[in-house]
């Protein structure tokens, strides 16, 4: 130390961190808080049974008993004394949110401890609690008034009017004149942040309860929101340095709006649903300044949405400063490829609207502000509450509230849809008991993705081909035409010249009727569905090894296991709510191993992420199995008691030494060892996978290898463990297989070649179903190319975009003699149809979906179908009756009754039971059976009850990178879109998150290719080429590129291979293709962006 420093002093610190560091990477927003009383958290834990025993106490003299570990608020609720205890910041669902205990409107008096906050104070044996002691009442009243003092009390323009917890509390507690007034100093208002496409933030109404922050960090584990500032400046902000919601890392899951007690975070669709219905009386006008959202183009507003344009998320935000949102939208629309009269009129309409709005707006603003201050100065706040609440109740009462099951992915989230007869306004949590998969959780699609239902592009009337286009037709004419077209082909070429495609998006009832229509009415053996293109290899592999082609366990088990092996699943984007449960469990200590060629979102949470070479998965999975056996880590007793063929397995995996695995799949030996040891020694383990395993030329082998690993380690047939294929479509489990929409099985996976099975169907249908195995989807296309299949009936599918090598598929469709497409839009497939039948979307009909955990759940009708569109089951019934049959179903419930009578695994399922008991998991053989939470606890689904090891063979991808096409292309999903994007490309907010196709390229690869981030590049395979925007990122490995599957422009399936299919399941190899990438350059010869690939 130098002599210049004579005195002791604080040592030099390089970074003194005078304030909390901002970080783009994830950090829980409340992580710097000390854990408040860990015992309190358990109070709201669903697993109270873990600490048995009751605690007895008295509330206002009344004796109550509650579970130990509960908090006083539970006891107060039990005693029914909670009406006077607002507890504003307390959230009563789940155990992730609170107790934060900050509003102090739940103070009660105890004999032993004096005044305590009920929401977080643990119950104690013998405690005497008084809610109406003067000190407690005073504390609650003063604190409630203090909350109101910082609240912008504009109920009549507030989006939460009528369903606001602060409003309810104020009314329940007879607040008339809040002691300290309310926030109505216009000068101190914060602008409304309306920049997100889905969620409006009005910080003037925020009571800083922190629920949204915990929902964001602890429920969704997304780490976007935080509380920032201190004292008077405390506000909800962002963990990144973003200032607006749109610039933040928000994924629009909507949890924050779901849990917000006031009008601070509101679903935009509901923002005006319960306000005073006078034009101009809006939250925006009331507050004044607004940060507006700049709308993106959608499939409805542009032929090539967002192509060649800069917007949003990380891109330039110049549009905001100079141009107003309106102008930006206008000029965007103008430069879009919208053509002809329609385009001109649309632009004119927008301009006229903008002018009228501008003129009207000023007048309305003045009126609203005048009315508002008049009301504020003449009415006591209490009266304002009552008036506003009455308006809110009245307007909310006019809305439909429908409990239903989500129509996007197969997690099976349930919620309440708020709608008018023709528009979905918002989605709110359903009762906990009605939503076993998700409780109050949602993802962006389930909560906000409904604009498609009101799209101008919806089919509202049947269409019949007329030259190059279509003409509108009546139902009678269209159905006659379909009946003639199909029977004509059958008369000429026999029933097997016709193929039917069912849909994993339709209900179980509708898909049951589709396969019945094929087998009974048309007499064809050819019935299949798009599950062929996703999990058919899973089904094939699981049927061989364990006996049922389905997930063995519950989502609950996935949420509570000790260890995960997740591979080939981009869980956070494809199954967001399931990923939420996994992320929470990993945060709480579970081990997570992710093996994937791409460092997907879930890998960010992993204990260990291993990058693997695409197409060589059998190598590392067999390698894990070998390591387990080699080191005696396998469950010997389980293998001995419950399996066959262990010796064959041991022999087959022998060559997969750690060195071989590293050479083949690129997994380092130490990573292999760590994963194998942890998985084998964990008490329970869940093996989760999706398309990254199945969509390979050896997809079935991949899944066999996984099944073998699960069996060797004994992680199956017990709670919190099992084989968990994460299924894609809302009803792929039911409509994509359970109900017989497969060429080889009748409903309930009954063999089409089994005479006894055929007897029972013949008895019920009066017609014997064809006893041969029919054509799969790819086989249908191959046979159609040869002219053997001449007609197709496609219900709710889009093979023109989903088939591999779409150019070829489109030629086949164009050459068919007769094509019927039944859908809600003119899809890419419908463009080739002879007849297009308008159907109802999942929001517009009753029925059931079966989710990924085999749970059959009710779907409710929230909207009327537009125009003449009808539910698929009604259309099929009309067609069957036109073709000489006598179907007479009055309601989908009747169809379910027939299905359950013919399919033993659905035997005990009926709409009545689902209504009264909630979802049921098959097998559910009879009316008294409670359903089956997890499979195989008393043996596997074979005669002898034993599972079979079916050793997996190593395969090679159909294409390996070479000199001409040196890169490996992989495809997959993004969070904001679904399947071929038919629905999601029409939702403005989803398009504003991800508006167009792109290609992810590793920085090293990009440098070699001379590609810079964000420029357009051409991606080319042997089969075709697309032009997409480059994203330089290290998510894919060097030499691997990724393109999402949802877009019609830059469609990845212009590049994928149709010839390489899995020989067992028939699944095409979407996940591997060889490509080359070249920059388009600043001045491409032709406009490469507007032209749809493949036309």
């Amino acid at each position: 130390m130098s002599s210049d420093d004579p005195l002791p002093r604080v040592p030099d610190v390089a970074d003194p961190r005078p304030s909390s560091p901002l970080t783009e990477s994830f950090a829980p927003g409340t992580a710097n808080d000390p854990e408040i009383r860990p015992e309190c958290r358990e109070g709201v834990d669903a697993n109270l049974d873990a600490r048995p025993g009751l605690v007895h106490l008295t509330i206002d003299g009344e004796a109550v008993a509650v579970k130990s570990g509960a908090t006083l608020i539970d006891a107060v609720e039990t005693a029914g004394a909670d009406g006077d205890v607002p507890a504003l910041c307390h959230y009563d669902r789940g155990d992730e949110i609170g107790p934060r205990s900050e509003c102090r409107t739940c103070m009660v008096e105890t004999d032993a401890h004096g005044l305590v906050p009920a929401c977080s104070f643990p119950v104690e044996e013998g405690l005497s609690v008084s809610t109406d002691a003067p000190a407690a009442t005073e504390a609650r009243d003063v604190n409630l008034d203090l909350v109101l003092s910082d609240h912008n009390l504009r109920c009549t323009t507030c989006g939460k009017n009528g369903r606001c917890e602060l409003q309810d509390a104020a009314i329940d507690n007879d607040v008339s004149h809040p002691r300290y007034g309310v926030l109505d100093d216009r000068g101190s208002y914060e602008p409304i942040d309306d920049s997100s496409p889905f969620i409006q933030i009005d910080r003037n109404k925020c009571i800083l309860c922190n629920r949204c922050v915990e929902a964001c960090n602890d429920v969704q584990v997304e780490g976007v929101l935080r509380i920032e500032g201190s004292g008077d400046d405390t506000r909800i902000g962002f963990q990144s340095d973003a200032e607006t919601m749109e610039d933040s890392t928000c994924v629009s899951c909507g949890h924050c709006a779901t849990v917000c007690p006031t009008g601070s975070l509101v679903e935009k669709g509901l923002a005006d649903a319960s306000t005073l219905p006078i034009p101009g009386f809006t939250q925006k006008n009331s507050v004044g300044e607004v940060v507006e959202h700049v709308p993106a183009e959608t499939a409805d507003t542009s032929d090539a949405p967002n192509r060649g344009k800069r917007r949003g998320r990380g891109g330039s935000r110049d549009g905001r400063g100079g141009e107003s949102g309106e102008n930006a939208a206008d000029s965007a629309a103008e430069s879009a490829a919208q053509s002809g009269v329609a385009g001109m009129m649309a632009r004119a309409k927008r301009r006229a609207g903008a002018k009228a709005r501008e003129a009207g707006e000023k007048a309305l603003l003045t009126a609203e502000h005048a009315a508002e201050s008049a009301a504020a100065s003449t009415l006591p706040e209490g009266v304002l509450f009552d008036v506003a609440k009455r308006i809110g109740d009245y307007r909310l009462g006019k809305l439909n509230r429908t409990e239903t099951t989500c129509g996007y992915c197969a997690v099976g989230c349930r919620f309440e849809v708020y709608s008018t007869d023709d528009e979905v306004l918002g989605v709110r949590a359903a009762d906990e008991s009605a939503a076993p998969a998700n409780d109050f959780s949602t993802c962006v699609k389930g909560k906000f993705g409904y604009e498609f239902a009101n799209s101008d592009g919806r089919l509202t009337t049947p269409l019949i081909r007329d030259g190059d286009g279509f003409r509108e037709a009546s139902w009678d004419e269209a159905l006659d035409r379909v009946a003639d077209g199909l029977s004509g082909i059958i008369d000429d070429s026999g029933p097997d010249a016709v193929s039917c495609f069912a849909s994993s998006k339709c209900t179980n009832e509708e898909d049951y009727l589709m396969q019945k229509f094929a087998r009974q009415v048309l007499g064809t053996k050819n019935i299949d569905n798009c599950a062929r293109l996703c999990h058919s290899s899973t089904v094939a592999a699981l049927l061989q090894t364990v006996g049922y082609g389905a997930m063995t366990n519950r989502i609950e088990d996935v949420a509570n296991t000790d260890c995960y092996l997740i591979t080939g699943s981009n869980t956070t984007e494809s199954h967001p709510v399931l990923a939420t449960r996994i992320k929470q469990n990993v945060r709480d200590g579970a081990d997570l191993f992710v093996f994937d060629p791409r460092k997907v979102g879930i890998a960010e949470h992993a204990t260990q992420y291993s990058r693997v070479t695409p197409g060589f998965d059998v190598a590392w999975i067999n390698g894990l199995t070998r390591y387990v056996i080699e080191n005696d880590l396998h469950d010997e007793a389980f293998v001995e008691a419950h399996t066959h063929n262990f010796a064959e397995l041991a022999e087959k995996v022998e060559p997969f030494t750690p060195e071989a695995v590293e050479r083949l799949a690129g997994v380092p030996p130490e990573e292999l060892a760590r994963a194998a040891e942890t998985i084998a020694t964990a008490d329970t383990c869940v093996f989760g996978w999706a398309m990254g395993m199945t969509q390979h030329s050896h997809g079935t082998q991949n899944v066999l290898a996984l099944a073998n690993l699960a069996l060797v380690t004994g992680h199956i047939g017990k709670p919190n463990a099992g084989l968990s294929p994460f299924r894609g479509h809302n009803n792929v489990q039911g409509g994509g297989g359970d109900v017989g929409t497969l060429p080889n099985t009748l409903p309930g996976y009954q063999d089409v070649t089994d005479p006894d099975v055929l007897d029972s169907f013949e008895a019920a249908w009066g017609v014997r179903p064809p006893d041969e195995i029919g054509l799969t989807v790819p086989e249908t296309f191959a046979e159609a190319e040869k002219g053997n299949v001449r007609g197709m009936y496609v219900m709710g599918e889009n093979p023109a975009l989903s088939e591999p090598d779409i150019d070829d598929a489109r030629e086949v469709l164009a050459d068919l003699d007769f094509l019927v497409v039944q859908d809600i839009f003119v899809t890419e497939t419908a463009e080739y149809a002879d007849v297009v039948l308008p159907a109802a979307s999942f929001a517009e009909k009753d029925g059931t979906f079966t989710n990924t955990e085999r749970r059959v759940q009710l779907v409710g009708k929230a909207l009327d179908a537009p125009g003449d569109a009808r539910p698929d089951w009604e259309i099929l019934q009309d067609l069957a009756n036109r073709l000489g049959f006598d179907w007479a179903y009055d309601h989908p419930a009747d169809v379910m009754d027939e299905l359950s009578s013919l399919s033993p695994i659905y035997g005990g399922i009926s709409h009545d039971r689902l209504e009264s008991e909630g979802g049921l998991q098959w097998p559910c053989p009879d009316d008294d059976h409670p359903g089956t939470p997890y499979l195989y606890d008393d043996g596997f689904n074979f005669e002898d009850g034993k599972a079979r090891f079916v050793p997996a063979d190593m395969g090679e991808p159909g294409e390996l990178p070479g000199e001409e096409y040196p890169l490996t292309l992989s495809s997959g999903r993004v969070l904001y879109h679904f399947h071929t994007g038919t629905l999601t490309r029409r939702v403005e907010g989803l398009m504003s998150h991800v508006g167009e196709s792109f290609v992810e390229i590793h920085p090293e690869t990009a440098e070699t290719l001379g590609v810079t981030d964000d420029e357009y590049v051409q991606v080319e395979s042997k089969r075709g080429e697309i032009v997409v925007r480059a994203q330089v990122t290290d998510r894919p490995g060097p030499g691997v590129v990724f393109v999402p599957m949802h877009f019609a422009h830059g469609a990845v399936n212009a590049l994928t291979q149709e010839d390489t299919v899995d020989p067992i399941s028939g699944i095409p190899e979407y996940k591997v293709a060889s490509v080359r990438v070249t920059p388009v350059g600043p001045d491409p010869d032709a406009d490469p962006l507007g032209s749809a690939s493949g036309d």
Partner: protein
Amino acid sequence: MTESFKLAVVGGQFGGLTRDLDVPASAPALRGAGLGTEGAVELFGDDACPVAVAGTRTKFAREENCGRCVPCREGSKQLTDLLREVYDGAYRREKLGELARVVGETSICEFGQAAARPVATAIAEFDAEFAAHADGRCPSGACDRGGR
């Protein structure tokens, strides 16, 4: 010694205001007398104004609180405003007392629990000076001089 000072603040920034230091120096005794237990004992002479002393400390609480709990964040704001109103001619003793009590009893941490102490003890001990302020007069003259 009582001759040589007008008031003392016992217990640091958020200590209690008192005219009388005849309290045993033990935590229970100090607490019983409504005084703080940590930090210094500050002595003020005749030129000090208890309203200003309490006001400065309440304003400090308003500015420096962490912002988490309602009684402390919003309570300190309203306490400060109520003290301002005293200067504007309205001395709402009950309202001040009620608010100080709730802030002190229901704040989450020591900061808020202590923050109400200067006001609570000031109105208990120097009621007449508050009333005088509401009449537009500062007996010590400190407020007229703009000092504290």
